[in-house]
């Protein structure tokens, strides 16, 4: 048993570290460190810089333009990326759609879409959830009715993250109301500028516009935009969920968040002493770091299994649960450290220390981490059934 990186891996780590030091724009670093939302333009510019280096689609195989890294290299890269305070670049095209197309797409779809994702020509958003279909996703109602070479799509999607930035959306739609709910679902690619498609903003409790509602009224979509077979959409969607396990816990970003919090506690004072000298605050910081350590080692177990080409064990099922718990704990600590400087809401710069300005927004938005991507409750239901065998009917 050995957790040390090999000399080659260490050299790789150095290479990545110096590259970030030289290439990450200062403004992006500042915003990421303070937890300030980035604009689409900022993200695209950054992704293009990464792509020029060949480091954007790190999880993709070589034939599709990936860097052909081992799982350990990808892990190291992610750690260094976070350590540099570089944005993760929440890109549904790279993380979600890319792997789906590789597994289920036609040659034509792969040839057309994959390079466009890599070169940041397309911004994809995810159209799964509906007002009536959240945790119970399979009950989705948005209909795609066959009409010659096209489908006619009617219905609505909700919570479409960055749908207002996207030019394309991948959707789960209902192509049949017969049989099992899951079997009537198909996976469809839709251009956002198709007539009949409308996006309306939803402002979230951090006061920002990340989310949208997307409406479809007689939207005509060519059948060649179907991914997989008609009725195979559920399988395709599920494939995504099992795909990338080694970064789902968000360890890299939480480690950096933790480091930033400790710095905040050292550099800001109260009653004549650094906040770090306050016994209860430092113990809370310590407890958060201990929880993070447990998460990191769970994550490493999954990584080790993946690196050895094995299927991850039962530990991987808690990565999302514990990972989001840590994220929420850290964001809560950010507010706690900020004291009354957590209260100013979208105030001008300089009313308090910069690093406290966005802590409440971050805390508020991080509440969503236990809601999206399978809520805490739904994750626990699955683990109880699938891992513990507590499955009674």
């Amino acid at each position, binding site marked *: 048993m050995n957790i040390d990186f090999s000399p080659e891996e260490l050299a790789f780590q150095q290479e990545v570290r110096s590259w970030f030091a030289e290439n990450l724009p200062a403004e992006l670093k500042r915003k990421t460190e303070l937890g300030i939302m980035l604009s689409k333009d900022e993200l695209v510019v950054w992704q293009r810089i990464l792509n020029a280096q060949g480091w954007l689609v790190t999880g993709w195989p070589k034939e599709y333009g990936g860097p052909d890294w081992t799982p350990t290299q990808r892990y190291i890269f992610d750690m260094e990326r976070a350590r540099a305070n570089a944005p993760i670049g929440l890109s549904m095209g790279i993380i979600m759609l890319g792997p789906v197309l590789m597994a289920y797409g036609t040659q034509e779809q792969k040839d057309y879409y994959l390079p466009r994702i890599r070169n940041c020509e397309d911004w994809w958003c995810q159209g799964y959830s509906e007002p*009536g279909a959240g945790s119970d996703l399979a009950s989705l109602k948005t209909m795609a009715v066959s009409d010659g070479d096209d489908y006619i799509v009617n219905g609505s999607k909700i919570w479409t993250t960055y749908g207002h930035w996207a030019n394309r959306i991948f959707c789960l739609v209902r192509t049949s109301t017969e049989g099992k709910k899951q079997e009537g679902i198909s996976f469809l690619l839709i251009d956002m500028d198709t007539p009949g498609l409308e996006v309306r903003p*939803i402002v*979230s*409790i951090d006061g920002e516009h990340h989310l949208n509602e997307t409406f479809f009224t007689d939207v005509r979509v060519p059948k060649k935009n179907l991914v997989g077979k008609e009725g195979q959409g559920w399988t395709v969607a599920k494939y995504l969920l099992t795909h990338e396990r080694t970064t789902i816990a968000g360890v890299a970003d939480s480690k950096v968040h933790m480091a930033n919090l400790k710095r905040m506690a050292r550099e800001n004072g109260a009653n004549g002493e650094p906040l770090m000298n306050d016994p209860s605050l430092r113990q809370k910081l310590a407890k958060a770091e201990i929880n993070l350590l447990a998460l990191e080692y769970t994550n490493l177990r999954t990584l080790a299994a993946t690196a050895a080409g094995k299927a991850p064990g039962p530990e991987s099922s808690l990565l999302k649960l514990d990972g989001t718990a840590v994220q929420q704990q850290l964001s809560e600590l950010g507010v706690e450290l900020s004291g*009354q*400087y957590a209260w100013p809401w979208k105030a001008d710069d300089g009313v308090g220390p910069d690093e406290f300005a966005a802590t409440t927004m971050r805390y508020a938005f991080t509440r969503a981490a236990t809601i999206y991507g399978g809520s805490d409750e739904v994750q626990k239901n699955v683990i109880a059934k699938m891992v513990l065998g507590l499955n009674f009917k």
Partner: protein
Amino acid sequence: MHFNLSDEQKLIRNAVDKFIRNDYSFDARKKVLALENGFSPEHWRQFADMGWLGIPFSEDQGGLGGGVVDIVQVMEAFGTGMVLEPYLSAIVLAGGLIARGGSAAQQEALLPALIGGEKLLAVAYTERESRFNPADVQTRAEKSGDGYLISGEKAVVLGAPTADALIVSARTGGGRLDTQGISLFLVDSKAPGVEITGYRTMDGGCAGNVRLNKVQVGADALIGGEGAGFALLDEAVDHATVAACADALGAMQSAMRKTVEYLKTRKQFGVPIGSFQALQHRAVDLFTAVEACRSMVLMASLKVTDKDPVARRMAVSAAKQFVGEKARLVAQQAVQMHGGIGMTEELDIGHYFRRLTMFCAQFGTTDYHLKRYADLMAAAA
């Protein structure tokens, strides 16, 4: 022993409840939220006409002669509707301080206008690095002629942008953390040398940073004795803390009820999500939290008037620690059980979340009050 409200107290509570129902629905509140500083002059007028601005003041002072229990009733009702107007900062905290410590002349000059809704006050006691300790004062007041020159900076002062006058804590003696040597001064917000940078707060209210640059005040601006302001401030903050707990109780109660209602109506997997035991148990956690907080608010409202400052402080810190902890639970779980819709600005749940989040640190976090309680407990032998 009985814990019943008097007829008069019931009348006040019913009147405020009615106001929230008729004039402060979530949609009506959105309009207030859009106003400058989240303050509606019409509402304030209405509060004055209803006599609510006079509740904490004696009849001699032109008030209704109400007690803590009356204030708690108003605040709890305000909490259910998330009222944005600065009742807590202007009436309970600043007004209460003047009522308890102001000279006859000061009371005469300030209270009628405050009670009549014509003037607003705020207490500027927190500083850049004072966090929650009201004894941490670096702002200085130097003798000058028969008055004082005040210089320093106050941070995140609730209600500062709307206040006509500020009650400022400043050192006339002692070192940074000493309770001795703190004096309280009445300072006109428009006086030369006063600069207020206002902003909105996460709950929709307003606060501001106050810079004081050689602000000249007369000897008559001193509230209480020179160097003896801490006891007065500490007591006023304790009273305001109990009122804040009552507000939080109202907000928690509403968030809990709305969440339970949602569990009954939202369907997934063909059934109301309230049929899932995981959520049932959590709903019960919120319910028990709210009821236990009600007990703590009751306890604190009875003990905050204790003549013994140690007994008063312990009771207030016990309440703030307890209610703060439960407020966080209720805020977080109300959002969680709503799922995506709980994350939106559109729904009231997110607003309760932010109001309760702010409450958690108001007048001291749970940790601050746990330590305050523990230190007093240990010293009590």
